[in-house]
């Protein structure tokens, strides 16, 4: 046997070696998101924020009689919140699925 470590050591790190062999890292349970489900998610997050923003603005109008300025402000803020939501989802997705560093470069207009 080439391995000179005492047998206790081999048992000690057995768990980590098994985990490594199985390819387990911090996230073990994630099936990959399909492109369609991701697109659905973007749309849902964006639309929901606009709806909620408009609703909150309408509520403000209703209670302090500022119609239509509450609705206008709510729509604009809801739009901004929708963009924030999308950026959050996208950055979380990019963090979970880093781009392949060996992928071929895609030429853009500057090239």
């Amino acid at each position, binding site marked *: 046997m080439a391995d000179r470590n005492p047998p206790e050591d081999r048992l000690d790190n057995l768990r980590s070696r098994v985990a490594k062999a199985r390819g387990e890292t*911090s*996230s*073990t*349970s*994630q*099936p990959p998101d*399909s492109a369609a*489900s991701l697109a*659905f*998610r973007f749309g*849902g*997050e964006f*639309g*929901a*924020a606009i*709806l*909620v*923003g408009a609703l*909150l603005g309408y509520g403000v109008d209703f209670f302090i009689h500022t119609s239509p300025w509450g609705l206008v402000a*709510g729509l604009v*803020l*809801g739009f*901004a*919140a*929708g963009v*924030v*939501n999308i950026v959050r989802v996208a950055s979380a997705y990019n963090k979970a699925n880093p781009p392949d560093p060996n992928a071929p470069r895609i030429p853009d207009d500057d090239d």
Partner: protein
Amino acid sequence: MSNDPIHQFHINPISPPIHLGAVDATFTNASLFMVAGVAVASGFMAWAMRSQALVPNRAQSVAEIGYGFIHGMVKDAAGEEGVKRFFPFVFTLFTFIFMANMLGMFPYWFAPTSQIIVTATMALMVFFTVLIIGIGKNGFKFLKLFVPSGVPIYILPFVVLIEIISFFSRPLSHAVRLWANVLAGHLVLKVFAGFVPMMAAAGGLVLVGSILPLTMTVALYALEFLVAFLQAYVFALLTCIYLNDALHPGH
């Protein structure tokens, strides 16, 4: 009737009317399939784990893999503390949605998750859990969720407003995603399946052509099984992400 794609979502009472105060608690086909989902899920778990063997048989393996799958997901998204506090909740949500979706895949059966009131109730349960646990555990520090660090003071009011809207939009997008996926999937299935008898009845060359929608229906059915699992998974995963905010507010 059988060609109407909306017909499958009709709620029909199957018991004499029950009224609890002002609440109409009549037992309907939706209630029946929700009860069936709970019964199948808990029945399977109890049956699979009856021997509690050290070396599991096949059924016990399925139960343990399902448990380990959700456990890993909660741990990844909300940490050890999340597992301690919320694992039963997330596991219940996942198994219920999964079973409801799967039972809904049987022809002529009913998918309770195609009703937005069902998904909205679950999304609001998560929303209020986040609010109550978040405020109970962190007190005023929970409000840091709405105040990102490192924002210049002159745009802070706008950012706080946007964060509040973003926070309140969560239950909506959470509920709509599951509901819309299940509803749209069942509608598309029914529409394509409805073409088959229509084209077959026309006879001649069109009868031969009816093989196309039939193939499409089979392919869509496979896709719907994937969606049934994936949407249960996504719902549970988002629940974990939101619950993590209750434990650790502030970005």
